[in-house]
């Protein structure tokens, strides 16, 4: 506990002593984490958007004309097995005609030319709203049903959400890729800053070694310093993310209403902020451990 307290004080003193280099370092970590945060935030909003979108999803499967009643019942039973389903309605060809006439009575003369109902029978499905990751599951479920031999065609209002999901996937991958590169850049920079700090305090380290300090006693303050730097970077990135999200909608005219609908620009989920702090600390820890390993090896 005493060592932790001393190490913390040492780390803060070191950060303050080499202000320029440490603040530059903090800036780079913050930039890395801010990039990670922005991509995370956009990805999160797209996820929420698609989830909200799926609340009103309905799918109508139109059946082929020569389908037997037994096959229809089997298909309905299969659909009912899914936990995603809230309601399922089968409409025969005659029911479809009745519905049409109820809605468009003035078009009765067109139907009078047909011997049988020209409308196909259909299965209408309404989905539950409380399932997590619903959109992806619904898309996969619909694609599965569509493969059935008795289905002629489908009408689903989820195609747009499907595209949004693709965009989300693309943004996530881009975010991971960019953050990954910046992650390594940050590690390299903190590694060198810690190395400089170690060299700056080489005389002190030598003295500690001569008087019988353990390696751990000497290393610990530098590890704390790295972790603290990363944590501070995470805090700054989180703060900048909150400020950006709050300010962008007020000052940017170019953000269309559609974008505003997708990205809320209001609340940043706590998990994103915690993720920034976590990754910041990890970056700092890895860098300082690498630096120390090299120093003690030499």
């Amino acid at each position, binding site marked *: 506990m005493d060592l932790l307290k001393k190490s913390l004080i040492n780390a803060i003193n070191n950060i303050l002593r080499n202000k320029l280099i440490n603040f530059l370092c903090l800036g780079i970590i913050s930039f890395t984490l801010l990039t990670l945060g922005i991509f995370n935030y956009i990805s999160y909003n797209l996820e929420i958007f698609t989830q909200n979108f799926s609340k009103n999803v309905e799918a109508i499967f139109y059946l082929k004309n020569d389908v037997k009643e037994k096959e229809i019942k089997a298909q309905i039973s299969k659909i009912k097995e899914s936990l995603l389903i809230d309601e399922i309605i089968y409409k025969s060809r005659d029911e479809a005609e009745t519905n049409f006439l109820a809605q468009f009575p003035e078009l009765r003369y067109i139907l009078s030319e047909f011997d049988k109902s020209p409308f196909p029978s259909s299965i209408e499905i309404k989905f539950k709203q409380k399932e997590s990751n619903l959109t992806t599951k619904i898309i996969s479920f619909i694609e599965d049903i569509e493969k059935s031999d008795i289905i002629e065609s489908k009408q689903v209002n989820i195609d747009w959400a499907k595209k949004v999901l693709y965009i989300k996937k693309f943004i996530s991958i881009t975010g991971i890729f960019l953050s990954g590169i910046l992650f390594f850049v940050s590690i390299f920079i903190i590694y060198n800053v810690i190395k400089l700090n170690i060299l700056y305090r080489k*005389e002190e380290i030598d*003295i*500690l070694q001569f008087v019988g300090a353990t390696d751990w006693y000497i290393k610990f303050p530098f590890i704390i310093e790295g972790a603290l730097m990363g944590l501070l970077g995470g805090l700054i990135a989180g703060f900048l993310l909150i400020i950006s999200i709050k300010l962008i909608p007020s000052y940017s005219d170019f953000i269309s209403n559609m974008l505003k609908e997708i990205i809320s620009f209001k609340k940043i989920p706590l998990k994103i902020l915690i993720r920034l702090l976590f990754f910041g600390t990890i970056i700092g820890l890895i860098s300082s451990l690498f630096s120390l390993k090299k120093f003690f090896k030499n």
Partner: protein
Amino acid sequence: MIGFYHVYKQYIKDSYAIYDINLSIESGEFYFLTGASGAGKTTLLKLIYKEELPTKGQILIDSVNINLIPRKKLYRLRRKIGIVFQDFKLLNNRTVYENIAIPLVVRGYRKSYIDKMVKNSLSLVGLNHRKNYITSHISGGEQQRVAIARAIAGNPKIIIADEPTGNLDTELSIEILKIFEKINNNGVTVLIATHDNNLIKMFTKKTIELKQGNLVSYPSMEEQQWIY
């Protein structure tokens, strides 16, 4: 206590800094290590506290073959030895107290024990009145005394000093050596490297003499008895 058995140290090819040294220093003894500059005095001391590794040969400290001590366990050896350097190696932005307390702090002792031990060390070197001074604000002689106090603070079995009087005038040098004598009287083995023959003559102690890495003078048992 300290044993060298056919110890060689080579930094560059075909040239030995230490050549086939055999010596034995018993517990509680006081030795001067002398020789001209470049004779190998510092190298020999560095081999004792494992700052350097021998090219060949074995070194025993307190019955432990130090060649076999892994890097991670090196602190155990260092805690047995108090080292005093010619350039003091003090932390100049810290107080006298803080410098002396370092060996105790790294061992994780309690504050009350550290206070007691620092006080004892300060009394031995006569620096109680400088306790709270920043080390860079005191004189060279006082800084060397702080370095000695730091070396003895951790209760070592051996004190090694590399030219501890190299930067001091004769009067101060005598004062410093008297402190080492006091430490030795408490049972601590003392080995001091110096090229100052006048000091060696003044303090009748056993002497090891090196010349170009070779041991040229090492007291035999008869000589040792004559000294005492």
